């Protein structure tokens, strides 16, 4: 069991059935918590045709691991909002999901211009979307507030002209697993 668990941390592409097994094993308390799976998906800036695909990939991954649908929905909302922020404002970026023993970590990084005033951006209704974005139904100023509402912890780092990192944590409820 230990070998499988250690192996998984080195190669995130092993079959999910082993991930499940390792997750159960790790939950038995015999091992120190460690990341069991980490997957990253590319987000292409200004590509509205592919926008959302990274979040859909994360959703499918979590579904295949039998997480609680309510937890998956919260992660999906946060993934989509952050993905759209990158598509609209951030240039190219990466969305990654890390599955830990007791939590999921969703991290979005981009190489865009950054957020000038994070506190302001966290306020509902504030938006820097342009007219084209608004025409498509974006720019309601609900992105970051939605992410804050649906995650257990959120951390936003955006040094001037050095891109943005948004990290969100979702604790896995004890009864949140159907396996």
């Amino acid at each position: 069991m230990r070998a499988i668990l250690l192996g998984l941390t080195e190669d995130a592409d092993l079959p999910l059935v082993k991930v499940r097994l390792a997750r159960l094993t790790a939950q038995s308390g015999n091992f120190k918590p460690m990341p069991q799976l980490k997957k990253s998906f590319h987000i292409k800036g200004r590509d509205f045709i592919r926008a959302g695909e990274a979040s859909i990939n994360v959703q499918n991954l979590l579904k295949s691991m039998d997480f609680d649908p309510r937890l998956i929905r919260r992660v999906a909302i946060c993934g989509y909002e952050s993905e759209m922020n990158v598509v609209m404002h951030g240039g190219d970026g990466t969305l990654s999901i890390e599955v830990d023993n007791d939590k999921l970590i969703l991290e979005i990084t981009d190489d865009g211009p950054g957020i000038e005033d994070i506190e302001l951006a966290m306020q509902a209704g504030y938006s820097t979307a342009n007219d084209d974005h608004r025409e498509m139904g974006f720019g309601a100023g609900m992105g970051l507030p939605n992410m804050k509402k649906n995650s257990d912890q959120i951390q936003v780092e955006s040094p001037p002209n050095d891109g943005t990192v948004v990290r969100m944590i979702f604790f896995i409820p004890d009864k949140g697993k159907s396996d």
Partner: protein
Amino acid sequence: MLVKDLVERFELEVAGGQNGLDREVTEGYCGDLLSEVMGNAPAGCVWMTVQGHQNIVAVAVLREMAAIVVSGGQNPDAETIQKADKEGIPILKWPDSSFRLAGQLFSAGVGIPEAG
């Protein structure tokens, strides 16, 4: 009620995502601001919106909706239909307002919790 039952009953035009017509409809939702819909729409809903661009499909997939109705006589983009086919989310067209269809759906029992 299944999506195909809605299509028949309200004479909706199926513009895409035919492979998802057997999805079950349990709720309804109206909205044109994607973040608002993303944050609040219930799973299994039929979503009425005037937006026809491709991003509506991702919202529907992520919220696990039953179908999208593009209302107000608006037309879904070709990319929207392609994406809907790929994801199996039916895109239906309705010539009148979202309000009119929502009223009829509600009268038909969509979104009303079953007694007991």
